[in-house]
């Protein structure tokens, strides 16, 4: 049973206060939706949680241990940022091969891509795809399955209805397997998740 929580988390950028007194706690099998307007610090929050930003006030605790003290914390989450992490001039196949090496895990891509109806584009260059298709492939990283936590930054942007539902299904499945999800969104989602905070 894992628990991720923040206590009085604040973050300053120069003089600007980006995050002010964020408190939440989330357990295994739950999903937290972080809502807020553009530029309200949603991405900053995710980057603090994924230990990229280390200069903040307050505490971020994973199982009651500060995330900067936990040496294994970095191997426990899977962060999908707003950037697609795709090499534009390479084909999907080659991009996925590169990911396989980075994530140290060989997936059966053909099957998974058929699920999203993308397999026929397998050998196409990424630059020829639409934004939604790129996002789908970017979210393909969620299939690497050694992680307890998912941090998703605006995962529903560019996705059509079918793919949105597929992603929600995937998140539900992950929750059933006792995974924790934190996702950001600035629009209303079609489904209600366990918890929601506004920043």
């Amino acid at each position, binding site marked *: 049973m894992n628990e991720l929580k923040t206590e009085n988390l604040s973050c300053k*950028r*120069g*003089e600007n206060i980006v995050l002010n007194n964020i408190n939440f706690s989330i357990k295994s099998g739950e999903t937290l939706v972080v809502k807020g307007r553009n530029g309200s610090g949603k991405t900053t929050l995710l980057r603090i949680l994924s230990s990229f930003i280390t200069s903040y006030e307050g505490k971020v605790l994973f199982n009651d241990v500060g995330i900067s003290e936990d040496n294994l914390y970095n191997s426990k989450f899977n962060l999908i940022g707003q950037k697609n992490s795709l090499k534009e001039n390479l084909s999907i196949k080659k991009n996925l091969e590169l990911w396989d090496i980075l994530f140290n895990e060989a997936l059966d891509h053909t099957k998974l891509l058929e699920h999203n109806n993308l397999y026929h584009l397998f050998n196409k260059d990424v630059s020829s795809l639409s934004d939604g298709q790129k996002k789908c492939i970017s979210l393909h990283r969620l299939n690497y399955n050694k992680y307890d936590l998912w941090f998703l930054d605006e995962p529903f942007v560019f996705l059509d209805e079918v793919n949105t539902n597929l992603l929600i299904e995937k998140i539900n499945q992950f929750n059933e397997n006792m995974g924790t999800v934190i996702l950001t969104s600035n629009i209303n989602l079609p489904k209600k998740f366990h918890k929601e905070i506004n920043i």
Partner: protein
Amino acid sequence: MYIKIKNNHIELIKSANPYLIFATIFAFVIGLYYSLFQSPPDYIQGDSMRIMYIHVPSAWFALMTYSILAGSCVLWFITRNPLFNVVARSIAQVGMIFTLMSLITGSIWGKPTWGVWWVWDARLTSMLILFFLYIAYIFLWQAISNKELASKISAALAIIGFINIPIIKFSVDWWNTLHQPASISKLSAPSIDVSMLIPLFIMTAACFLFLVTVSLIRFRLVLIENKVLRTSN
């Protein structure tokens, strides 16, 4: 980049500005009078050595300004006081101008003295590299859109450049056999007449006043630029 500087300090700098400008102009006029009219020509180099009165101060201040720049960058990293960053940024461009001036006047002086515009010796080469270090510092700051980040990055670069300069001087010295004695040792030699020292010192003082005046103007400029950038975000 939040700077706690009292308003009355800024007011003080502001009110000192006209006096400083006046003093700079005054010093330059006196310096010009002495260096062009009131000093004898050198018995070997003739009147061409009058260029020394502007070349040597520029070279001194080019080096001194870079030392201050690198020093305040180091202090910024140690103390985390953003004032040092503002000092570094306000002084950098003045240093660049002095470096450029010492290069140009140096090569104009070199033509009648050595017969060539340029010699590839250690001092000239490291001066040229110094100029590019200033350029790198200034333009790297401009190229990075996140200004807080830009200050940190360009400060790191300034410190690396400070390590690089002596290495370059050493390596070019080693590489080149064309040695020129440094100007400072030339000064201490008895061959230099007191009548030449007077204009040199006045010009040095004038250049120093110019450095201070423009740095303080740029200090205000940098502070206000920070405020404008912050409110526009």
